[in-house]
C-alpha cells in the first residue's frame, strides 16, 4: 500500500487511489469542477491542481487523475498552485460569467473579476454530461466534437439522437445550467456576498444588519435613492 505525503501529512492509501481522494481522506479541500464521484476522472478543468515534486522538478498536475504513488510529495496550496488555480477560475468566469457554480468557486478562491472579455457561453466543456451519459445512463448519446477553440459537445452530427432517452442526467450534473446570482453586479464581477458572513453594513446603516458585504453598493438598503443605476445594471 503506497504511502505519500500531502501538505506535510503522511497518508497510506489503497493502490489505485488518486491524489485527490487521498487529500480528501485527510480532510484537505481541493476545489473541483469536472470531477464527480461515480464518474471516471477526466482532468479537464485544471482546478484540482496540486504541486508535486521538489526544486526544479516540481510541477503541477491535476490531482483527480494523478495516481497516489508511494513516496509522492504533494502540496495542495502552494503559491504556484494558488496563482495558477486563480487564473483558471478567471478563465472559467470569462467563458460562463453567469454560472452560479463558477461565481461561487471564484469567490471562494478570492477571484473577484475577470480581466478577459466575457463570452457568455453556455458550456465550459467539463465533460460531466458526456461521462454521465455514457457511464451512468449507459446511453452514450453525446460526446465531444471538433477540437481546440471549436470544441463542442453534441450528439453525432448534431442530429436528434436515437439513443437519448431524455433522462436529463446531463442537465443534472451540468455546473453551468444553473440560474446565476440575480444580484446587482455585472456577471464578470463576483461580489462574494454569499460567502462573506460578516455583517459589514452596520457601520453605514445600523438598523439593517446587512450581510451582503458590499457596504451600500448592492443597493438593497438605499434602493429608492439609486433607481437608474439599478435599472442600468439589470439591462446589462
Amino acid at each position: 500500500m503506497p504511502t505519500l505525503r500531502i501538505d506535510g501529512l503522511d497518508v497510506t492509501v489503497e493502490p489505485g487511489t488518486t491524489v485527490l481522494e487521498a487529500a480528501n481522506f485527510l480532510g484537505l479541500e481541493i476545489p473541483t469542477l469536472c470531477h464527480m464521484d461515480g464518474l471516471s476522472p477526466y482532468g479537464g478543468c485544471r482546478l484540482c491542481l496540486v504541486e508535486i515534486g521538489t526544486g526544479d522538478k516540481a510541477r503541477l498536475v491535476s490531482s483527480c487523475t494523478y495516481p497516489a504513488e508511494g513516496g509522492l510529495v504533494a502540496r495542495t496550496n502552494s503559491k504556484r498552485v494558488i496563482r495558477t488555480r486563480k487564473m483558471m477560475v478567471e478563465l472559467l468566469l470569462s467563458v460562463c460569467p453567469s454560472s452560479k457554480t463558477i461565481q461561487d468557486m471564484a469567490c471562494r478562491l478570492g477571484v473577484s473579476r475577470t480581466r478577459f472579455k466575457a463570452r457568455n457561453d453556455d458550456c465550459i466543456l467539463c465533460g460531466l454530461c458526456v461521462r454521465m451519459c455514457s457511464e451512468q445512463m449507459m446511453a452514450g448519446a453525446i460526446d465531444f466534437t471538433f477540437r481546440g477553440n471549436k470544441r463542442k459537445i453534441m450528439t453525432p452530427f448534431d442530429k436528434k439522437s436515437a439513443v437519448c432517452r431524455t433522462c436529463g442526467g446531463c442537465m443534472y450534473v451540468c455546473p453551468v445550467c444553473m440560474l446565476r446570482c440575480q444580484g446587482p453586479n455585472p456577471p464578470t464581477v463576483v461580489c462574494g456576498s454569499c460567502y462573506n458572513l460578516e455583517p459589514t453594513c452596520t457601520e453605514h446603516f445600523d438598523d439593517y444588519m446587512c450581510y451582503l458585504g458590499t457596504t451600500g453598493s448592492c443597493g438593497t438598503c438605499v434602493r429608492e435613492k439609486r433607481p437608474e443605476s439599478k435599472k442600468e445594471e439589470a439591462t446589462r
Partner: protein
Amino acid sequence: MIRPIKNARELAELKDSIVSQRDARKQCISVCCGTGCRASDSVLVKKGVEAEVAKQGLKSEVTVKSTGCHGFCEHGPIIVISPKEIFYERVKTENAGEIVRETLVKNNIIPHLLYTDPATGEKIKSENEIPFYKKQRRRILEKNRLIDPTSISDYIAEGGYEALAKALLEMKPEEIIGEVKKSGLRGRGGAGFPTGFKWDFCRKAKGDRKYIICNADEGDPGAYMDRSILEGNPHSVIEGMIIGAYAIGADEGVVYVRNEYPLAVSNLKAALAQAKGYGLLGKNILGSSFQFDIAIERGAGAFVCGEETALITSIAGRRGEPRQRPPFPATRGFRGKPTNINNVETWANVALIINKGADWYSRIGTEGSKGTKIFSLVGKVNNTGLVEVPMGTTLREIIYDIGGGIKGDGRFKAVQTGGPSGGCIPKGQLDLPIDYESLTAAGSIMGSGGMIVMDDSTCMVDVAKYFLNFLRDESCGKCLSCREGTQRLWEILSGICEGKGAQGDIALLEELALAVKDASMCGLGQTASNSVLSTLRYFRDEYEEHVLHKKCRAFVCGDLVGAPCQTACPLGTEAWRYAALIEKGRYQEAYKVIRENNPFPSVCARVCDHKCETRCKLGATGGEPLAIRALKRFVTDTVDPSAYGPAKAVETVRDRAKVAVVGAGPAGLAAAHYLSLAGCKVTVFEAEQEPGGMLMSCIPAYRLPGEAVRKEIKALLNESIALKCGVALGRDITLDGIFKDGFKAVFLAMGANESLKLNIEGEDTEGIYPSMRFLKGFNLKEEKLAFGHVGVIGGGNSAVDAARVALRQEGVKSVTIFYRRTRREMPAYEEEIVAALEEGVNLETLVSPVKIHSKDGRLVGARCIKNKLGDFDSSGRRSPVPLAGSEFDAPLDTLIVAVGEQPASGFLKAAGLKLHKNGRLCVDEATLCTNRQGVFAGGDIVTGPNTVVDAIAAGKKAAEIIRRHLNGEDLKIAAGTKLPEFYIEPAKISEKELAEAKRVRPTALPAEKRKKSFAEAERAISAKDACREARRCLRCDLKFTQKEEVESGRNGGAVCRH
C-alpha cells in the same frame, strides 16, 4: 529470387552478390525524387533522362535511379552523376537531353547547371564542395542520396541490416539496451528523453505482450526531416525498430504516419513488403526464434497526435486526446500493454549505434547531447533545406555558414526553433551551441528540429500571434488551460496587433502564459506559450512599442501601420493622398498636402532618402515601389509655393515669447517656421553667411541647386522670424547671453560638420582634406582644392558627393573612391554610386589606407592594404579583415577623407551641456530637452550625420515641444500612428494596365554632359508620366477610409471611419 535470409552469412553473401553484379565504373544518374524535388517536376526530369538514355542506346552502360531527398530542396531538382560525383541543380525537363549528350557521352560538365557559390561566384562541381554540405555531418541523411528507397538491394549493398544481424545473433537484449544507453542517444522528437532508459523501462515492465511505435506524426509547420527519412531511407527506420523490438521484447510494431505524406506511406509500404520477403520481418527473423511485424497506421493530421498518449488513443480509433501520465506508455500503452514510442529520427539512429558502437557514436556532440541532429532550416535564409549537424553546433554556424546568411537586404533578427511549441532566440544568442539543455535555457525547445529564420521585416508580436493561432486550433481542447488559455492569449495578441492594446495587457499576457505552461496536462499545452514567453523575454520593447506607442517597427501589423508610406515618413507626409490627387489632376491640392507637413517640399523632392518608397507595398510584393519622390518633384516643380498659405495657430503661445534657434539648417529653419506659426518671435543665428546649413554647404548643386533651396527658405520665412547670419554660438554669442537677451527657449540645431579623422600616420600633410572642408570650400566659397589624381576614403554619401564634385574641378585627372568593405555594404545611396561610376569615378573596394607618403611636405600617395570580408559583426554586415602582405601604393595628389562626421560641439561642454563621447548632445529622446532648462536640441547635433527629412522632422517636433514648454504644458507628445483620414475615389484601373505598368524613371542628363557641369542632373517627370505613375498606387489608405453617404462635399466628400 527473393527468399528469407537465414543467418548472417547469407546476408553477407546477398550483399556480396548485389555488389559484385554492379560495375563501380558504370555511370549512374541519380535523380532526387523527394517531395521537394517532385514539386519541381523531378519525376518528369527522370523520365526525360531515361528516354534520352534509351535514344542514345546507353541503356546497358548507364543506370538511372531515383533517390531520396538530398536536403538542398531550395535548389531542386537535384541530379548527381557518379562515379564522378557531378552535382547538377535546378534541372529542368529540357535539360535532360543535354545532360545525357554532354556529360554522359562526351564527358563534359555543363556549367550552367552547376551550383554557383554566391560569395565567390565560383561554379562548384561536386556536392561535398558546396558550402551548404561541406559544414554538415551527415550520418543519417548521407544514404538518402545513394539509395533508391524502393529497393532493398540498394540498402543491403550499403551495409543495411548488418546491425540487425549483429544485434539479433550476437547480442543479448540487455547488451543492446546498454549500448544505446552508453551512446547517449536522446529522443529526437523533442523532449529528449534518453532512449536507452526508455527501452529499459519498457523491457522491465510486466506484460504478456509488448509493442513498439514509430512516431511519424510530424506536425510542425516547416519541419520535414522525418518525412525525408521515411521517403528516402525507410529501411533504416525499419531496421532500428526491429532491433528495438528485440531489445524490448515486443512482437508487434506500428508506424503512425500522417496521411499527408503519401510518398512516405507508399515507400514505407514497399519497404515493409520487401523486408518481409527477405524474412527480416515476420517469424524466425534471420533464422532466430525472434518474431516481429510492423503495421502502418495513418493519422488524420492532428498536431496533438504527436503526443504519445494521444497517438496511442488515435491508433486505437478514438479521439486523439492525451491522458494523464503516469501510467506511462512503458507500463500501460497500446492496448493497455507496455509500449515504447520513439520518433522516426531516433529509430534511424539505432542501426548506426549497433553497427559502429556507442563509443564511436558519442564521439561527437556535447556533454549531455550526443550524435547529430537534423534541422529543417527555413525562412529568410539563403539556403533552405535539411541540415544535419553535430549537437553543439552554434546557431551562427547553421545560419551563416551552412544557410549562407540572410536573404536579400534584411538583417537577422531571431530564429524560432522547435516549431509552434518552441521559442524565438534573438541575435544576441547566435553563438549558442545547440543542444537540448541550451535551447531550454534560452526559453525554446529542440522540438523536432524546425528552424525558422526571421529578419527585421518580421514583427515579433505578429509571430507570437501566428503560432498561437495555430495552437488554439490544434489544441485538443481537453484542458481548460490550453483550450481557453491559447484562445485568450491569441485574443490579447490580436488586440495588441490591432492597436487596441491597453496598459496591463503585457502583464496579463505574461501571467496567463505562465499559467498555461504550468497547468496544462500534456506537452502541447505546457509548451504552447513558449512563443509568447520567449518573445516577451527578448523583444519586450517591441510589445511595449505596440501597446504604448501604437507602432509596429516591422510594418507588419496593418492597423498600426495605416498607409506604410505615410507612417514611414518622419514627417507623416500623406504620400498616398497626393498621389491620388495627382491622378485626379488636382495639383494645387496635392501641393498643399505636401507642404502642410513639410516646409521643404522641393528640397525633399530632390534629396530625400524616400523611406516611403522603401516601405511601399508595391515594392514589398516583389514589384517596384511607387516613385513617390518623382511624384513630389513633379508637384513642387508645377505648383508655385504661394499656393500654400499656412494658417496661423489660433491658440498662440503666452506673450508672444522670444525663442532663439541656433543653426539655419533644415532642422533649425523648420523649427523657426513652425514656432513662428504658433505665435513666437523667433531669431535664427547662423554661423555661415547664408542660411541652409548642409543643404547649401554640402549637397552639390547638380543634386540640389542653390536656387531651389533659396526659394524654399524665402517661402518659409515670415515677419516673425529674424535671421542673423555670420553669428556663431561660442564665438560671437553664448547661451547665457541669449537668455539674458530675453529669449525664453533655445533650440540648438548646429548639425554635425566636423569630419572624422583616419588616425593614420601623416594625416596632416598638405593635400589631404576632410570632406566637410572640401565640400564647404567649394559650395560656399568656390575654392577648388582638388587636382591631379584624387583619392576619396569612405563609402557614405559625403564620400560620393566629394568624389563627384572633385571630378568636376579643373586639373583633376582621375578620382578614385577607396572603401574598406564591398559595394554591397556601402552606406551611400545606390543611385548616387551608380551615377558616380557612370561619370567615371573609380571605385576600389576592400581597401583601407595605412600610411601617407609625402614629398617636401606635400602628399604624393598613400599606402593601402587589401581586406577580405570576415565574420558578421553586430550590425549584420561582414567586417573587413586586412590581408597581410597585400599592401600596395596608390599615387595621389589630393586625398579627401570622408569616413564620417560628428558635431563640433566642444564649446557646449564648457557651457555646461552634457555630451556623448562622440560629441553628440545628450537629450531626452521624447522631449528633446538637454540638461539645461529651456535648452532643446535636435537634428544632426543629436543623432550624428542623418538624412534631411529626419532633420526637418526633429525641427518640427522641437517647435511643438517648445510651444508646450512656453505654455507650461506636458512636453511629451502622445504617441500614435496617424491613420489615413480622407477618402479619395480610387482610379479605375484594369488588370491589364496594372500588370503592364512600370515604375517611371525621371530623365537625367547623360553622364558625358553632366560630368563637367553643376547643372541639375535629374529632371521632373511629365504630367502624363506623373498621372500614369500615380495610378500604380495600391491605395493602402482605402482600408481605413470610406465614402461618405451624405453629399457634404467637405474634404473631398469623405470622412474617416475611425
